[in-house]
């Protein structure tokens, strides 16, 4: 039997990016806020100081900062004819664990979606006709526009101190920035990072072939910066230990470096760590949440009553908790009815590896969001007429380092071990680089999340089950994008290039990204969305999913974090300025 705690105004499930932003915004108004976090407290000095943060085995291979599958995992199958199997060790994607969540070990790649991404279905149908989209593709318009979200993108980027070069300030094109991006109200908070030789060679080749390269927007900071919360970030040292690592230099934006020092000062905020919320409790009408139940490490069960429940976990676990709590109608792929678990989507990446002659690239000098990029083939930035697919992505040189357990390029045909392998490894390391495409993953009727019938978590609750495979649209897109990237690679004067477009079936053991989206989609119509345009549950008005990637109706050709952060501020404003005055459905 759960022991009941004194009531709070707001309970937040998960203290990562969205949880810490919402906590700050609501604690600021004087509300009593508690955040309940499954994993441990983490801070730079204790968990990843510069004395040993640069440990590839510990952090990148043994995954020290990540969610452990024994805590929570999910099951996976490519299609409904298979039996889903538990993901026993994470490798295809890596959910975070602990205070800061995935905001600790992300790369800092900070992208806005395109204005047309927010009107995806209506835009594509208008330009290419209704028949252009596959019948089972379930993409839909967002319930917010780019123009509405722009001020919130701006706020999140200022929170992070993002480094970059604007390409469009209030409609005025800016030389050196991304010419395809939506308008910005201001320049990036800090200037672009310096570039190494590989990125410079890519940019030259891209320009020569008629493209428009620009520095990747990075929340690894080019210079020291004080954010609007008064928290100071340091300068990035290009150490090459960003992806999968915490930053020992306070130079990568994270809840730790941007929000928590200010948040913890509020006496009306507290955090409960190593405690997992097992259920959102509803009243007898089922239309109002009364709080949450959580279990601490001793197995003790607690009930935390609250007036507002904010679901700020990683996308999968928002979906799982909603299904387990009976909020919203579960999605049925047979009928297409129901919404919770609908429109799971991912990302479609590919690569072109390049070996150059007689170059010293120093590939270990890097940041998580380094490099030069082109956006010519993202979204609907190019004419898709006759191509047979929709969607796209950015591409370029964005290597995040060359840590040698995981990055050791060799020429084609090299054996995997032995004398020849050793020689090739030694001779190739300094003159090889990897170019990549990072593209959209649209949603489909048969790609979804539900509860597994067999496998249980440590509390005896059903695991979430993922049913997902790539569709022809995405594979054709990847082939096209990878060909374009290979064309640019050929202009880099390579000795050898190897193009690897994405191929099916989707393999849960091969890392691509941790950009798992959908399942608690926001939308204008309750028949095709779980949340309204303010990220509020259609069914239980005091439950919000304020901005996690689970609210995306489909995934676009960019990394999700900037949009996640913008939506967190968007939802926080709606709660502060509208919901608190008049608690009830906002739409």
């Amino acid at each position: 039997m759960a022991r009941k705690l004194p009531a709070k105004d707001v309970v937040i499930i998960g203290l990562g990016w969205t949880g810490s932003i919402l906590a700050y915004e609501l604690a600021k108004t004087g509300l009593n806020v508690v955040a309940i976090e499954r994993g441990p407290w983490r801070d730079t000095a204790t968990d990843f100081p510069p004395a040993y943060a640069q440990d590839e085995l510990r952090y990148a291979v043994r995954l020290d900062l990540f969610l452990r599958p024994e805590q929570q995992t999910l099951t996976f199958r490519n299609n409904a004819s298979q039996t889903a199997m538990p993901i026993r060790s994470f490798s295809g994607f890596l959910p975070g664990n602990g205070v800061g969540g995935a905001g600790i070990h992300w790369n800092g790649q900070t992208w806005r979606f395109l204005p047309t991404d927010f009107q995806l279905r209506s835009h594509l149908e208008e330009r290419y006709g209704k028949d252009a989209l596959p019948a089972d593709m379930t993409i839909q318009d967002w319930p917010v526009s780019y123009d509405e979200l722009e001020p919130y993108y701006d706020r999140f980027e200022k929170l992070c101190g993002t480094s970059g070069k604007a390409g469009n300030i209030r409609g005025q094109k800016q030389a050196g920035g991304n010419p395809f991006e939506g308008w910005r109200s201001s320049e990036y908070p800090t200037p672009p990072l310096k570039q190494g030789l590989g990125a410079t060679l890519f940019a030259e080749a891209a320009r020569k072939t008629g493209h428009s390269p620009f520095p990747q927007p990075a929340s690894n900071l080019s210079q020291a910066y004080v954010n609007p919360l008064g928290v100071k970030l340091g300068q990035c040292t290009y150490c090459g230990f960003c992806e999968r690592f915490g930053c020992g230099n306070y130079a990568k934006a994270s809840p730790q470096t941007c929000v928590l020092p200010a948040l913890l000062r509020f006496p009306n905020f507290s955090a409960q760590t190593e405690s997992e919320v097992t259920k959102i409790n509803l009243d007898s009408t089922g239309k109002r949440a009364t709080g949450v139940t959580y279990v601490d490490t001793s197995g003790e069960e607690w009930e935390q009553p609250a007036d507002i429940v904010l679901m700020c976990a990683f996308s999968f676990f928002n979906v799982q908790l909603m299904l387990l709590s009976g909020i919203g109608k579960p999605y049925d792929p047979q009928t297409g009815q129901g919404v919770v678990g609908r429109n799971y989507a991912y990302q479609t990446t590919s690569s072109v590896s390049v070996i150059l002659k007689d170059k010293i690239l120093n590939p270990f000098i890097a940041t998580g969001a380094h490099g030069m990029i082109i956006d010519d083939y993202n979204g609907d930035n190019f004419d898709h007429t006759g191509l047979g697919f929709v969607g796209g992505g950015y591409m370029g040189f964005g290597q995040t380092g060359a840590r040698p357990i995981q990055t050791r390029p060799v020429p084609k045909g090299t054996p995997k071990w032995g004398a020849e392998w050793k020689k090739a490894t030694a001779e190739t390391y300094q003159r090889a680089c990897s170019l990549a495409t990072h593209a959209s993953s649209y949603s489909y009727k048969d790609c979804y999340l539900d509860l597994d019938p067999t496998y249980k978590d440590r509390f005896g609750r059903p695991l979430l089950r993922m049913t997902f495979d790539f569709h022809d649209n995405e594979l054709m897109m990847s082939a096209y994008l990878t060909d374009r990237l290979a064309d640019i690679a050929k202009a880099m004067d390579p000795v050898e290039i190897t193009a690897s477009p994405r191929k099916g079936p989707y393999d849960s053991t091969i890392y691509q990204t941790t950009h798992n989206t959908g399942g608690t989609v926001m939308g204008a119509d309750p028949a095709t969305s779980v949340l309204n345009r303010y990220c509020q549950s259609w069914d239980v008005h005091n439950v919000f999913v304020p901005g996690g990637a689970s609210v995306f109706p489909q995934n676009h050709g960019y990394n999700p974090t900037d949009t996640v952060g913008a939506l967190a501020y968007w939802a926080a404003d709606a709660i502060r300025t509208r919901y608190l005055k008049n608690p009830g459905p906002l739409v």
Partner: protein
Amino acid sequence: MNRISSSGPSRRLLLTSAAAFFFVGTTLTRARTLVGSLPWEPGTATPPVVVRPGPWVFFTADEAAMVEAAVDRLIPPDNRGPGGKEAGCAVFIDRQLAGPYGRAEGLYTRPPFMPGAATQGYQLPDSPAARYRTGLRALADYIKDHFAGKSFRDLASDDQDTLLKGLESGSIVLKGVKSAEFFALLLANTQEGFFADPIYGGNRDMASWNLIGFPGARYDYRDWVERHNEAYPLPPVSIMGRSDWTVKE
């Protein structure tokens, strides 16, 4: 005032006492409530613990001899530098298998165990330590049967290579062990040991980092990011420093 309550011994105390050999998973930690300020405490970090030379911890003497011979074929010594044995790859694997990695700690190990598609990942209950134990035994038996009672270390290099290639392709069938999967595990761990920080027992004297030109744990390249096409001038450094930083007696 720093108001931290804890429902048990503090996480940091637990970690410092439990982290005797290896870094420890979050599962040993305790729930706590944080209010009022950042809960930093001195002396509570969890640095890795250095692997010291010494007796085998996981391997038997025979197993160790076989693994040392194998890692020296996977990464042979040559004029570019030491091979897998001298670099400590077997020591690395031994210590890893004796620790949380070997025990599959933190992984999802609940039944039922059913065969799945390749896209669904590893679905057997055996931990890495168990896989080595059965894999090495099956390989030793195979060699005994096919090479007149010899063991792996007694074979000529060419025969050792032929055997390893047979395991890699799966053409050699071991009793009760999927040979290609076992080989893939051995190769992955060998290369981890060769390229990881020397603190874990492999990559002795930063052999692999010298081989490829990786500076290791330098952590600051601000002065070199725009020095295009110029070799980085400083030698590699480990988390525990360099041996030439230590005063020689």
